[in-house]
C-alpha cells in the first residue's frame, strides 16, 4: 500500500496520455465484451441443449420435411423415451422486422423433455394444452410486444398459407414462461403442431424435425444409428445427431463464429498492443531521470521494474473495467442489436472475469517492454544525463 503513491505518481505524470491509453483500452475491452455477448447469442443455445436429446432431420437437408408417421416408428426404437414433432413457422408480428422464432410442437412431449428448463404456472400449462390455438411464449418476447396471458394475436408467416389461403394465423396467449438459465431462448413461441398441421393449406402430415429424449444420455450414438438405419432406403432417410451437435452445426451454417470472433479481437488486440506499448515505453523513456534518481536514493532496478509492471497492469485493469462496464450497460440497456435475430443476448459474468484476466496479462506484457529498458539502464550514464 505504501507504494501506491509511486504507482499513481507515474500514471498521473502525463494525464492526457493516460486518458488516451485508457480510452484505447476501454474501446478494445468494450469490443471484447460486446462481441462476447454476441458470440454467446449465437452459441448460447449449444450450452442450453439437452445432453439426453437428439434431433432427427431429413438426410437431404434441414429444409426437407418428413412424414409425421415417423414419430411412432421412432418411439419404437429401443432407448427412445419421448418424441416431439416440430416445425418452423417463420412468422412475424405486424411488421417484417418483428421476427422471432416460433415452433409448432407437441405440447406435452415437448414440455416433458424440457422439465426444469422453464418455469410456467401449472394452470397456464394446462390452459395451453387444452386450447388448440393456444401458444406458450417466453417472457422476453412477451415484454418486447407487450403481450399478456389472454391476448389473441395474429402472426403472419412468409412460408405457410392456411386453409383460407392467407398467411395470417391467430393464436391465444395461454402462458408466459420464465427461466433462470440465461442461455435458454426466451424470445420464442410454441404452439400446437396439430393445429398447425390441420390449418395449413399444404404440406400436411409432414414435420420439420423430431426432437427425441433418450432413456440414457450415454447411448445417444447407438440410438442415432438405430434410427438412421431404420429409415435407410426409405423415401425420407434421416440424419440423427445429439442436440448439441445439431445446434452447433446449425450455427456453423452462418459461419465459424468462434473464428470470426477471434480474428476481429486478434486484430484489435495486436493494434492495441502496438499503440499502448509504444505510448507506455515512451512514457518510461521520459521518466528515465526519475528512475535514475530513485536508483540513487536506493530503489533497486528490480523494484522499479516491479512498480512499472504493477503500474502497467493497473492501467490495463482500469481501462478494461471501464470497457467491460460500458459493454454490460449497452447489453442491458439496448439489448439485442439485431432486433431479435439473436435468440438470447446477454453478457455472461464469465466474460467480465475473462476480460479482466486478459487485461492483467496484457498489462504484464506491455509492462515488460519498459522493464527491459529499466533493467538495462546504466545508472551512471542516466545520472550523467540528468546532471
Amino acid at each position, binding site marked *: 500500500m505504501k507504494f501506491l503513491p509511486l504507482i499513481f505518481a*507515474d500514471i498521473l505524470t502525463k494525464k492526457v496520455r493516460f486518458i488516451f491509453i485508457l480510452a484505447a483500452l476501454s474501446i478494445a475491452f468494450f469490443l471484447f465484451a460486446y462481441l462476447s455477448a454476441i458470440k454467446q447469442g449465437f452459441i448460447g443455445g449449444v450450452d442450453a441443449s439437452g445432453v439426453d436429446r437428439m434431433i432427427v432431420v431429413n438426410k437431404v437437408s434441414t429444409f426437407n420435411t418428413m412424414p409425421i408417421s415417423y414419430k411412432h416408428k421412432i418411439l419404437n426404437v429401443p432407448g427412445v423415451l419421448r418424441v416431439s414433432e416440430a416445425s418452423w413457422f417463420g412468422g412475424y408480428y405486424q411488421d417484417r422486422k418483428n421476427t422471432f422464432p416460433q415452433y409448432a410442437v407437441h405440447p406435452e412431449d415437448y414440455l416433458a423433455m424440457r422439465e426444469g428448463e422453464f418455469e410456467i404456472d401449472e394452470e397456464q400449462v394446462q390452459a395451453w394444452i387444452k386450447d388448440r390455438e393456444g401458444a406458450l411464449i417466453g417472457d422476453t418476447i412477451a415484454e418486447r410486444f407487450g403481450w399478456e396471458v389472454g391476448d389473441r394475436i395474429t402472426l403472419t408467416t412468409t412460408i405457410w398459407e392456411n386453409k383460407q389461403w392467407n398467411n395470417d394465423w391467430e393464436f391465444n396467449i395461454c402462458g408466459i414462461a420464465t427461466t433462470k438459465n440465461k442461455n435458454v431462448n426466451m424470445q420464442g413461441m410454441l404452439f400446437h403442431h396439430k393445429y398447425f398441421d390441420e390449418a395449413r393449406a399444404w404440406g400436411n402430415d409432414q414435420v420439420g424435425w423430431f426432437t427425441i429424449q433418450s432413456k440414457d444420455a450415454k447411448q445417444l450414438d447407438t440410438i442415432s444409428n438405430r434410427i438412421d438405419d431404420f429409415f435407410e432406403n426409405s423415401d425420407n432417410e434421416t440424419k440423427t445427431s445429439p442436440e448439441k451437435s445439431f445446434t452447433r452445426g446449425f450455427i456453423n451454417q452462418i459461419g465459424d463464429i468462434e473464428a470470426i470472433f477471434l480474428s476481429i479481437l486478434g486484430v484489435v488486440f495486436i493494434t492495441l498492443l502496438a499503440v499502448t506499448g509504444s505510448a507506455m515505453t515512451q512514457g518510461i523513456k521520459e521518466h528515465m531521470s526519475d528512475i535514475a534518481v530513485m536508483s540513487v536514493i536506493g530503489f533497486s532496478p528490480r523494484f522499479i521494474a516491479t512498480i512499472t509492471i504493477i503500474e502497467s497492469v493497473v492501467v490495463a485493469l482500469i481501462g478494461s473495467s471501464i470497457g467491460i462496464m460500458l459493454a454490460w450497460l449497452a447489453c442491458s440497456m439496448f439489448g439485442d442489436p439485431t432486433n431479435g435475430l439473436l435468440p438470447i443476448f446477454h453478457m455472461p459474468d464469465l466474460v467480465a472475469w475473462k476480460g479482466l484476466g486478459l487485461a492483467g496479462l496484457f498489462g504484464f506484457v506491455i509492462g515488460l517492454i519498459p522493464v527491459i529498458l529499466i533493467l538495462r539502464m546504466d545508472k551512471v550514464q542516466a545520472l550523467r544525463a*540528468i546532471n
Partner: protein
Amino acid sequence: MNSSSYINAQDIHKQFSKGSESIDVLNDLDLEIVSGDFIALMGASGSGKSTLLNLIAGIDTPTHGQIVIDGIDIAKLNDSQRTKWRTNNIGYVFQQYHLISTLNAEKNVELPLLLHKLNKTDRKKRVLAALSLVDLEDRAHHKPSELSGGQEQRVGIARAIVTDPNILLCDEPTGNLDRKSGDEILELLQGLNSEHNKTIIMVTHDPHAAACAKRILYLNEGKVSTKALQ
C-alpha cells in the same frame, strides 16, 4: 591510512571506454575524509568530480582501488549490497533537485523511507522533522511546481537527510539557484554539518560556495590536491 578517517579511498583508478578509446578519469587517487568534515570538491569540467561522488555513493565501482567507508570496502560489495548500503548511509542532493513532479513535498521526502521498515506514523514523523529542519513544514502539501527553486532544493535536502545518513553528497547544490537562495542552501548545509555532524562532500564550480566548506579539494588530472590549478 589514518585511523580517524571516515572515508578512505586508496589507489582509485577509474577508466571509461568510449568506443575503442579508453579514458582515465581518476588516476591512483587517494582521499581521506574524517567524520563530520565538510569538503568542497572543485575542478574543471571532466576532471572527475561527479565520478568520484558516484564512487563514494556506491553508484559506480572503481576500475581498481579501494573505498573504505566506516570500515566497509564498498567496492567489494555487489550491486544489491551497495544499493542497500547506500539507502542507509548516503543522502544525495542533485543540482536540478529532481523531485517527482506529481508528488507533493511530503511524499517526495518520504520516498527513501519507503525502503525502510517503518509504519506510516513513524514515516510521517520523520518526514515532518526533515521538512522542519529545512524550514518547509508549511509547504508539506505543495507540489514541486508550486515551490521556488530554493524551496525545491530544500525539499531535495530534506529527502537526502530523512533517513539520517552520515554522509551527504551534494552535486552542485547551488548551481541552479540565485545568490540569495544559494546562500540559504549553503547555510543549511553548514548547519547540517556543524549541528548534526553530517559528513558533506559538495561538488561545486562556485568559489563562493566552496568557501563555506571546511576544506576545499581540487581534482586535477584524476588526482586530488589541496591547491587550485593556476
